């Protein structure tokens, strides 16, 4: 098969293979919501989605814990709106090495809760939950993480996954204030930001930089490499 001029040839494999282009096409079309996955990658995601790592109780506990770690706020929501429990379950399946820590930590949490308050963690009052978390919430950064007690490692993992899950969500990105990932014409740091951080542009350097009003003009040079347009 000859891939012609500017062809956007989807799922076309070798010129000589017979293949099953209809099936290929279907997989790729179903990948539409999947941010440019290859058929193999898509298949793996679907396989992981079909697996179950946490039972309902464990998912509920993660949901409660994640909102203690990062309490929701008006307008920018919290871990539940950000899909944090689902994200943590997916990562546990995607990276099986985390599974023992994730599952074992949840059992440790309920066992502590029963011992102190005779209830599961998810049913405790916030103040009681804090009493359980306070002793494991802080760590000594001078001690390598793998040498820290298990429950401290587990809570750090839960905090990391909660924070990353939230700040990679639509709401978390809004809370953070990140302004990128959209078409832009970069023309330097705003003056108020330069002032805030006590730096300034060197006029000689800036003189060499792109004048954005000419970005659409086709570049031409003289024979010495001096830009003419």
């Amino acid at each position, binding site marked *: 098969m000859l891939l012609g001029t500017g062809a956007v040839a989807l799922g076309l494999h070798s010129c000589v293979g*017979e293949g099953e282009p209809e099936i290929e096409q279907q997989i790729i079309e179903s990948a539409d919501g999947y941010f440019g996955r290859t058929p193999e990658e898509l298949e793996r995601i679907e396989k992981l989605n079909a697996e179950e790592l946490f039972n309902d109780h464990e998912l509920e506990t993660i949901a409660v814990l994640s909102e203690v770690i990062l309490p929701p706020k008006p307008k920018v929501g919290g871990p539940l709106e950000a899909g944090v429990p689902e994200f943590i379950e997916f990562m546990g399946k995607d990276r099986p090495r985390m599974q023992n820590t994730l599952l074992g930590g949840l059992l440790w949490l309920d066992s502590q809760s029963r011992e102190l308050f005779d209830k599961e963690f998810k049913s405790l009052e916030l103040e009681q939950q804090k009493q359980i978390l306070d002793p494991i919430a802080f760590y000594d950064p001078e001690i390598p993480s793998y040498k820290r007690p298990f429950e401290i490692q587990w809570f750090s993992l839960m905090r990391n996954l909660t924070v990353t899950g939230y700040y990679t969500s639509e709401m978390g990105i809004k809370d953070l204030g990140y302004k990128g990932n959209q078409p832009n014409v970069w023309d330097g740091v705003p003056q108020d930001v330069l002032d805030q951080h006590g730096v300034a542009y060197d006029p000689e350097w800036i003189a060499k930089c792109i004048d954005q009003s000419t970005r659409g003009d086709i570049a031409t040079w003289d024979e010495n490499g001096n830009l003419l347009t």
Partner: protein
Amino acid sequence: MQIKESPDVYDVIIVGSGAGGGMATKQLADAGFNIAVVEAGPFFDPADPKTMTQMKWPHASPRRGAGTDRAFGEFDMAYGGWEIEGEPYTHEPGTDFRWFRSHMLGGRTNHWGRISLRFGPKDFKGKTRDGYGEDWPLGYDDVKPYYDKVDKLIGVFGTNEGLENDPDGFFLPPPKPRLHELFYIKGARKSGVPVIPSRMSMLTKRINNERGVCFYCGQCSRSCSAYADFSSGSCLIFPAQKSGGKVRLYTNSVVREVTTNEEGKATGVSYISKDDRKEYKLKARVVVLAASACSSARILLNSKSKQHPNGLGNSSDVVGKYLHDSTGSSRAGFIPALMNRKPSYNEDGVGGLHVYSPWWGDNSKLDFPRGYHIEVWGGMGMPSYGFGFNANEFNKFFGTKVGGYGDVLRDDVKKYYGAVVGMAGRGEGIARKDNYCEIDKTTVDQFGIPVLKFNYKWSDLERRQATHMQQTFEEIIHNMGGEVLGDRPGGPDNGLNKPGEIIHEVGTTRMGNDPKTSVTNKYNQLHDVDNVFIVDAGPFVSQADKNCTWTILALSWRASDYIIEQLKAQNI
């Protein structure tokens, strides 16, 4: 097994569609030849919405960008990675080499850093300069006209600085530095380390009406759908399909060997189709290998015949030898003066650095022979998996508690957002005969093709260079008022990345004037077989402290001109 033979005879078969293969395709197609491009991976067009990852948000993915499936994160545009299922490679025990492959139209050019540096005059004459390695059989003046043409054809921003070993070119104007880069400029200059605008192949201005202009999303590693960065498919292969010649793409086709006739001349290639696992043959007057330095060496070594018992082009026994990657070592610092940033503006910029430091040192006064350049990163980037891990660990620099939970975490994430600046040194290692890849006779891949076995070790010359990098990074971080993160990397190699990890592997089919000590002549033509050429980084005699792509492009164009001349004169 029946091998299916195509009745067509092409003028030229090009194996591989990355930088070298793309340039050969463009030049040879423009000259009107009938060409087959054989690529191991699928067709890929950066503008195809079905495969595109540019402008996707992390929350489009259930793993939020984590790199489980793709080594540099799941939005990165490389199909392959350090390990590919069914296509292994092996090591001599006690040595290491990491081999990154990307099997897709355009190869690794779809995700590369676009740092587009010319080699300088000194870089082609290393042995004359310091006695290590070998000189190239050509000099800067031979390559300069091609660098000039590559600049104009593909587009690269930068500035003419009049530096002896970082030559001027035909540059588009660079983008202005970002905030963290202003801190780097100050910090580096305080230590006498020069900083100039970076030189990268994104279009800050239009260069023709076919390609768009950069819209500053910072995602060049995802391959630009506006064709505003250099990717081989969008900038070379698609335009080649529009020009006078005929370009036929064979995708998902893994080349096993170059076939030869009784006289020992190449007749074409045989390849395995990934679709049906059958072997096919293609014929051509000329075979151009551009499969990447190690893959091309592998194809040559696997192309054994009565006439070429040691593998094609390997009468010198040099194929696979002199493998070398750039050296690499990195460090990052926490810069308190970059805390509490106002995220009031979009500072994505181009994907990668707006400023860099070319090598400034005088090696005659240092304990290592070759230099390195410094790449800089930082800023308020788009969150992805891993963002906010150990969110307030920098509290330790202020004597406050690390960890916790609650609203304070939101404050900490924002307080430290964009307050880290990183530096990566990328330097020149010495090409050595005893760093090599060879065929592992015990192992084949899923296509039955014998695989490569690597044997590579750094020497004290590279280790001492890495120590110099680390000392420089620490000094610059202190100059920025920052705290160096982590201890100085130690280990047996002083914090050097493993060989191969910088993904600048070159040298496996080095060029030279003497057929006994080199594989190709200075036109990238095999000494042993005059109708086989290699236009990837295999023919590099030495790496320089520059990234290799711009030189691959220039030498591939130069070799293509030579092929056109030889074909027209009916010499090959």
